[in-house]
């Protein structure tokens, strides 16, 4: 294992000079905060000593230290974060100010042009740039350096100023513990808000790139077009050939595979949950539950490997022995394996909702002379139906978003078919295919992946929202 020291070196190395200042800056801030803590604590400690009335319970001196330390740390960190976000746009702005517009391409191409310059960090890379770009590279380096220095100076100044100010302000009458605890509470809130920021980040990333895509390709062509062949749109002048980006075959393929997966997982998952909760004795449960848990814990890439190398050939050979022509990357193989993968998911959701049905309903039915299966089919399942529907929706969302199994076992060709023996492709497969090549980030091909991502996100979001709502309402009913 690598030592921590090496780790830090690694960080500094890979980030190069640009990020080294960040690490150093963070370290400096930490030192300043520590100073604030010790001085603040000492100050109050001495003041306490002078007080004659020793019996009175005071706030511990360390809380005053915390207050001073946090004052030196938190605002500076926030400022640093803001500056980091603003840095790239600022540098871009500066560089386009300095260089006459004649030298620069316009619009989207500007980003590309600048990217070349920014990405050149080693000497050989710089040497490989055109002369014009080398000059701009010089400008760029200078601007970056100035910005870095300015950033560092502002952040450190804020830290020192606030640290000193708080040290001067605190005295034994300060409600230090209250201040400290309020600050911590705000930090905790900030941590909780990361969930929101993540959602915003997702929406931001898929939405804006998609909008750029829809600027080139009309939404209608994308949503309702029946031909998908992004490979033809490599050259810029072909971007407009809108027939290439019709996503219907992908939607149909995704639905076909998901449908097969649900066909497998819903009955099997439901029945195993019912068997385990209503019939099985302790020892059977003790064996079966871990089996399901292991099944749930197997990485999807392993399922994909199994689907592609074992199940798909098996189905093809089996189909051929029956005289059927089966594609070697049939939707059936991917769907079946995905279905097995989702069994534990369905089963645990079903288990949850079934066990939320009050015991009294079971007894009521059994007390009337119903058999167990009659009780389950006629009372428990109808009673648990909203919960089960919610679970199925969540499973559907899982199946639609599943990536690795289909990447490995489903095809790339966008056939518009509902025949499970043929190869189809899915939204996730295309996202991976479009984004793992070495293409430019701004090409319509790449942006198409984000448009697909938007579809995927919206679809699963809607499914999840409905499912979570239904399940919550269902639970409230029996609480």
């Amino acid at each position, binding site marked *: 294992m690598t030592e921590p020291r090496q780790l830090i070196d690694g960080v500094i190395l890979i980030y190069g000079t640009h990020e080294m200042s960040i690490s150093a800056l963070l370290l400096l801030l930490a030192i300043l905060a520590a100073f604030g803590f010790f001085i603040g604590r000492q100050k109050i400690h001495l003041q306490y000593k002078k007080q004659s009335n020793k019996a009175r319970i005071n706030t511990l001196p360390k809380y005053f230290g915390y207050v001073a330390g946090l004052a030196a740390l938190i605002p500076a960190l926030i400022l640093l974060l803001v500056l980091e976000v603003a840095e790239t746009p600022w540098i871009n702005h500066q560089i386009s100010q300095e260089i006459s517009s004649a030298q620069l391409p316009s619009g989207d191409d500007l980003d590309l042009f600048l990217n070349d310059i920014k990405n050149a960090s080693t000497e050989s890379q710089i040497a490989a740039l055109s002369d014009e770009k080398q000059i701009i590279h010089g400008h760029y380096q200078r601007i970056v350096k100035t910005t870095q220095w300015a950033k560092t100076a502002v952040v450190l100044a804020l830290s020192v100023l606030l640290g000193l100010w708080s040290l001067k302000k605190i005295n034994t009458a300060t409600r230090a513990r209250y201040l400290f605890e309020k600050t911590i509470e705000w930090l905790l809130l900030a941590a909780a808000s990361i969930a929101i920021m993540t959602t915003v980040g997702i929406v931001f990333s898929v939405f804006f790139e998609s909008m750029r895509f829809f600027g080139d390709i009309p939404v209608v062509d994308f949503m309702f077009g029946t031909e998908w062949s992004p490979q033809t749109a490599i050259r810029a002048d072909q971007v407009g050939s809108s027939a290439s980006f019709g996503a219907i075959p992908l939607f149909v393929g995704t639905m076909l595979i998901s449908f097969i997966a649900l066909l497998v997982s819903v009955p099997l998952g439901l029945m195993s949950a019912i068997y*385990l*909760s*209503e019939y099985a*004795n*302790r020892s059977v*449960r003790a064996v079966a539950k871990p089996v399901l848990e292991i099944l749930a814990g197997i990485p999807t890439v392993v399922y994909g490997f199994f689907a592609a190398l074992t199940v798909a050939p098996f189905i093809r050979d089996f189909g051929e022995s029956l005289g059927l022509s089966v594609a070697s990357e049939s939707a059936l193989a991917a769907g079946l394996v995905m279905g097995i993968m989702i069994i534990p998911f369905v089963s645990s959701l079903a*288990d*949850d909702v*079934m*066990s*939320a049905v*009050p*015991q*009294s*309903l*079971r*007894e*009521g*039915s*059994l*007390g*009337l*002379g*119903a*058999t167990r299966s*009659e009780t389950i089919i*006629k*009372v428990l399942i*109808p*009673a648990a139906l909203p919960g089960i529907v919610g679970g199925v929706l969540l499973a559907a969302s899982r199946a639609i978003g599943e990536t690795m199994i289909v990447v490995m076992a489903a095809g790339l060709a966008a056939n518009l078919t509902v025949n499970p023996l043929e190869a189809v492709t899915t939204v996730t497969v295309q996202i991976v295919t479009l984004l793992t090549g070495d293409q430019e980030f701004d090409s319509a091909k790449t942006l198409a992946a984000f448009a697909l991502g938007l579809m995927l996100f919206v679809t699963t979001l809607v499914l999840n929202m409905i499912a979570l709502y239904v399940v919550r309402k269902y639970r409230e009913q029996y609480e």
Partner: protein
Amino acid sequence: MVISMMNERVAELNLGIDMTQEIKQNGPDDSGILDVTYSETVGEYQCKDAKFSTRDVNVYYANNQAIFDVNLDVGRNEVIALIGPSGCGKSTFLRCLNRMNDTIDICRIDGQIHLDGQDIYAKKQDPVLLRARVGMVFQKPNPFPKSIYDNVAYGPRIHGLTKNKAELDDLVEDALIKAGLFDEVKDRLHGPGTGLSGGQQQRLCIARTIAVQPEVILMDEPASALDPIATAKIEELINELKENYTIVIVTHSMQQAARVSQRTAYFHMGRLIEVGDTNQIFTNPRHELTEKYITGRFG
């Protein structure tokens, strides 16, 4: 989840047993409840024309014994009340009579329980058939989340008691009338059963039980979750039902026992202490424990 729920239920049922155990280990406590040593059931536990007859019934939950050597007959078309402090085993005993305890894995029963002279725990005896003959009404109203009609029709449907829709309609109506609920719900037979008030729900559950036309109805504190007016209606209903059915009712209310039953059996810590004519039990209890319970010195 389900396992844990089961455990909770068992724990609930165990509560009584644990108390028993504890008191047994610690010996008589200050309240003097157990100053009296138990010998055997006081009073006439036998009946001439017994519907149910139980002999030496012992019930265990895992290693805890909940019922000790209970002998009790239930006469044909009589209402018998089982009373006693909470956790005394009266509910457990009741659940033995239609084998509802079968649903609890760790529950074990020995002794004999005969219905019309047949051992209901015999191997060839079918619990489904038994429960069709011995219906049960539970402590908390538990209508299925279906329409009122479907609730009542549930039993006849699963047992195939009717040949056609018209017959089923009649049967449902008849059961609702017998349960005294028909007039209140006749306009919304297809509305949800869970939309009724607590008392109505309990009468719906009784109608549901009657619809199967059982011979015996077991009632486990059927009015404990209801307000006094709803309780009164249930008691009235029980009085009407006794014309046609044998009823075993567990209750924690002595007044209720006095109002509805002909015979009363007093349980204490898993043992049947005294059984006899309801009037006699409440006016002239023969066992010290019964007397203390009746006079409210514990409960």
